[in-house]
């Protein structure tokens, strides 16, 4: 009886150890892209019919959120002549993949329908054009706020993605 109990405890402990070690291995952060500056290009709507105000709100909100949590990252707008001379510049290209306009009235009356959602494909390239990273980021507004609030949600998530994946080179090199 004692033998079975001790074996059970032993197997359980070894299983627990294996699981935790696997989890820790997965949580190891991937190496970050070295960048000291980022240039944000204007949002491309591609084949999606996106209202002009959404396009501008996405661009401006993204710049604002990046500026809020930039750390040592220098932020440039599209067409900024100073970006050409910037060291370790990463260019952020964004293309809208999905867009559902939703309705603020429906949201507030029903509380479950009428959500506005937007999915944007973000790709980071170097100055030479080589692809460094690409991700899809979505923005939603489910209950409170106007439809444009989805752009704010997207911008916050995109800025967080930038913070997680980009880091300034050590000693400013």
């Amino acid at each position: 009886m004692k033998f079975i109990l001790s074996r059970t405890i032993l197997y359980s402990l070894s299983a627990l150890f294996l699981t935790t070690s696997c989890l820790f291995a997965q949580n190891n952060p991937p190496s970050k892209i070295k960048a000291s500056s980022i240039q944000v290009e204007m949002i491309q709507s591609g084949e999606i019919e996106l209202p002009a105000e959404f396009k501008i709100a996405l661009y401006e909100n993204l710049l604002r959120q990046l500026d809020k949590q930039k750390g040592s990252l220098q932020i440039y707008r599209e067409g900024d002549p100073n970006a050409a001379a910037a060291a370790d510049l990463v260019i952020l290209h964004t293309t809208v993949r999905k867009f559902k306009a939703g309705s603020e009235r429906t949201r507030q009356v029903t509380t479950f329908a009428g959500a506005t959602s937007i999915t944007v494909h973000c790709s980071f390239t170097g100055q030479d054009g080589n692809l460094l990273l690409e991700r899809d980021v979505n923005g939603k507004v489910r209950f409170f706020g106007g439809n444009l609030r989805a752009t704010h949600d997207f911008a916050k998530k995109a800025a967080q993605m930038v913070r997680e994946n980009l880091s300034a080179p050590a000693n400013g090199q």
Partner: protein
Amino acid sequence: MKLRSVAIPFGIALLFAGLRIPEGKAQEAPHLAKQIQAVHLIGLQGVKDNAKGKLSVEDGKLHFVYGKASSDISINSIQDVVAGADSKKAVGKTVGTVSMAAPYGGGRFLSLFRKKIDTLTIQYRETGGTLHGVIFTMQSGTADDLKKDLVAQGAHSVLTEGQKEETKNAAPNNKASEDQKQ
């Protein structure tokens, strides 16, 4: 006697001057730029979001006056200007938020009432080439006039896909009506 002889012509001169001043103002009035009440949503440098002010088009610039400050955009730098339509809660802000707690769905009932508004979206480049975007909202039916004023003074406007289709659809209809006339 002398005083009276001086005072009467002086009084008459003053009277005429008084009559002329409003006339002069009336003549100046058409030259004043049309000002439109607007709310700045996002984009203008140094202007808070949701700042209320007045928009006007004059001297090749789009002026936004809010409080004691103002902000300008050179019309020649505008790459695209789009007038759109939207709506907002008729009962908004604090009352709207507090009403959400009202019993029997009173707040939701208030959400049914909405006010139509226009949006004016502007995309422009600084002299260096840096790209900016601005969004304003204003009373319904005013954004189109403002857009026309901007385009008349040199702003560019790119047709959206929807507008392109409208013009495409309109063209065959026009041709058909011309054929019918003939």
